[in-house]
């Protein structure tokens, strides 16, 4: 029985990941169109235009992936065949797995059973996320190398150098979070944000670690090689960087890895800084407003509300990332690296020290 539940939560986590990714594809296209004051993709239609209306989002969501997946799979001459197949797999697999530790709800109570709505309740959750992101670098390096193309190779090397530079900043931001909550388990951190500060304001992480939030968000965007940090795959510069020689589903897997990372950064920020699935004033048995008003709600509805809350927050942060991509100009590669090493790293270190000192001052002397 445990096995089935575990498989169920795993499936849900993966489905959230996949659905969000496909949705993001459409949101990106339409959203960028909105920002750039144009219409965007609206030509995909069913049955060759027989229907008098265009289903819009559905068509694009089906047509886009279908188009990509039915393209011919080309491996350039002289390329390493095994590595060419391996690279997109290695790019995507750790990112899928990261969603396994993201809590998308509190508990689902079915009869006597309490199911923790997190596919894997790892006590070292934050470290696991960091580990998976570290593994994501290989997709880029191997992808660039396996193509036997100078553009791809250089793109791959520059991309991976960028990724590892910003991983340190992310790690430091996450250290401050671990410092604040005293745990690495994402579900515990999400639960800890259910308390109220001064009886009124929900104790979300953003109030405790605003610097870490900014740091994590920026480093996350840089890690996923999105604009304004996307020189390694800048469409007008290095062709498609390390993705140049890929076509068909392998190409779509690299594009997916881009969107999955957007989703991961969004999921991390909501879980660590914005309460994850927490709805303000909502507890397991209903609402408890600060004025004393209590509304009892059945636990299934509570769970549903929490899952919806998580998804809404996830989308807000995905949208913010899309907004950032289409608003800011691209950083030059040396500016990019300088920013990662000379700005984010010292800020991260300073934040850790400051948080540590503040923590001890505010919570009193515990001594040795």
């Amino acid at each position, binding site marked *: 029985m445990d096995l089935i539940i575990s498989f169920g*939560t795993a499936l849900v986590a993966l489905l959230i990941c996949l659905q969000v990714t496909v949705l993001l594809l459409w949101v990106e296209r339409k959203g960028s169109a909105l920002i750039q004051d144009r219409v965007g993709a609206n030509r995909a239609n069913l049955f060759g235009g027989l229907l008098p209306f265009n289903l819009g989002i559905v068509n694009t969501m089906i047509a886009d992936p279908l188009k990509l*997946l039915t393209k011919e799979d080309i491996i350039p001459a002289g390329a390493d065949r095994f590595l060419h197949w391996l690279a997109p797999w290695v790019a995507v697999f750790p990112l899928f797995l990261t969603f396994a530790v993201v809590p998308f709800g509190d508990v689902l109570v079915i009869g006597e059973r309490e199911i923790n709505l997190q596919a894997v309740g790892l006590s070292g959750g934050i470290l696991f996320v960091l580990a998976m992101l570290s593994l994501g670098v290989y997709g880029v390096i191997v992808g660039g190398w396996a193509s036997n193309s100078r553009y791809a190779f250089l793109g791959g090397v520059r991309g991976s150098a960028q990724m590892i530079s910003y991983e340190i900043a992310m790690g430091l931001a996450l250290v401050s979070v671990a410092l604040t909550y005293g745990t690495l388990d994402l579900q515990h951190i999400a639960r800890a944000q259910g308390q109220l500060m001064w009886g009124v304001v929900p104790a979300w992480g953003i109030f405790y670690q605003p610097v870490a939030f900014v740091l994590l968000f920026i480093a996350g965007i840089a890690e996923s090689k999105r604009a304004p940090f996307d020189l390694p795959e800048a469409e007008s510069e290095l062709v498609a960087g390390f993705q140049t020689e890929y076509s068909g589903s392998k190409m779509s897997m690299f594009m997916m890895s881009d969107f999955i990372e957007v989703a991961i950064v969004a999921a991390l920020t909501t879980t660590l800084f914005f309460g994850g699935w927490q709805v303000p004033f909502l507890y397991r048995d209903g609402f408890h407003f600060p004025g004393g008003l209590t509304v009892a709600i059945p636990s299934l509805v509570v769970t549903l509300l929490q899952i919806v809350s998580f998804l809404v927050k996830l989308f807000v942060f995905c949208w913010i990332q899309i907004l950032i991509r289409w608003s800011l100009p691209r950083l030059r590669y040396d500016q990019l690296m300088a920013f990662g090493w000379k700005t984010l790293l010292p800020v991260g270190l300073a934040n850790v020290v400051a948080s540590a000192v503040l923590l001890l001052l505010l919570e009193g002397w515990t001594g040795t």
Partner: protein
Amino acid sequence: MNPYAALLINAALCALVATVLLFLSRILGRRHASKVKYEVFETGNPPIGSLRGTRFPVKFYLTAILFIIFDIEVVFMYPWAVAYRQLGWFGLAEMGAFMAVLAVGFAYIWRVGALEWN
């Protein structure tokens, strides 16, 4: 249930989905071998020189080494952060010393210009 067993289930599922995705265009797409398609893209000109002879700036090597060093530093901070409240001021002092030494190193490499990219 052991969380690592759940992790294994997750990993198997993700690996399966990733593999299916990988081979989808092989299955769904067309396959016409044509010599031109297999040429490597270099804006129309035939590729010059072999990939093997590409000169590769040393800066990348330096970035990777510095990454390892700072990664190890960050990794030491995690157990410290989790047990921080038990370690108290002494813990802060220890980590402070650790970070100070590395900060000196960081300042040195900054001054020396190892973080420059042109």
